């Protein structure tokens, strides 16, 4: 049973396209996150949702738009993809604001 699952695992696309990444957690957690891991393996938070409400929105281009249809899902839509968007995107979830976050296995996005 996968606790935090992301789809797709790999995403290869052209510059200028629009794409979405989906995330689902079956842990019953109330908070979900999106992180970006760059080529140097540095993990940086992008967004956080608690009970479908946006609570963290770091300095991220507005081409990135998260959407949480319910507590178990947090999707990430990216418009007008750029070369610099190439990275691994991780979804995570936690129960409560200072509890450990559990991560999915990431979506590797490559922009051609």
């Amino acid at each position, binding site marked *: 049973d996968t606790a935090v699952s992301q789809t797709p695992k790999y995403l290869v696309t052209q510059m200028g396209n629009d794409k979405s990444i989906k995330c689902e957690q079956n842990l019953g957690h109330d908070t979900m996150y999106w992180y970006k891991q760059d080529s140097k393996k540095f993990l940086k938070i992008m967004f956080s949702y608690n009970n479908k409400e946006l609570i963290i929105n770091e300095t991220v281009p507005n081409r990135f738009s998260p959407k949480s249809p319910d507590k178990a899902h947090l999707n990430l839509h990216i418009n007008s993809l750029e070369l610099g968007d190439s990275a691994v995107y991780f979804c995570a979830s936690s129960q409560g604001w200072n509890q450990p*976050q559990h991560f*999915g296995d990431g979506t590797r996005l490559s922009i051609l």
Partner: protein
Amino acid sequence: EDQVTQSPEALRLQEGESSSLNCSYTVSGLRGLFWYRQDPGKGPEFLFTLYSAGEEKEKERLKATLTKKESFLHITAPKPEDSATYLCAVQAGSAGGGNKLTFGTGTQLKVEL
């Protein structure tokens, strides 16, 4: 701004050779310090949370400790399966600020036979 620095960047050990990884942090109001393990092609896997200076946590060959400025991850008699990147992250601020984690860049550990 919260900062986390991990050292060394990479560490090569022989099986059974104990060592420690360091995580130095600068935050205003530490709420928690988290250790994760990340294997290639996988997401970070949670290991420990430490909340206050003096606290220690253990799991198999790993032991995490916390002071007011840094945390150590001690690895006793490591095995090849302990090879991974170990990430440290801090959470600071108030409950209303959300659960933002600031990560270090990790220590890449390789344990050889």
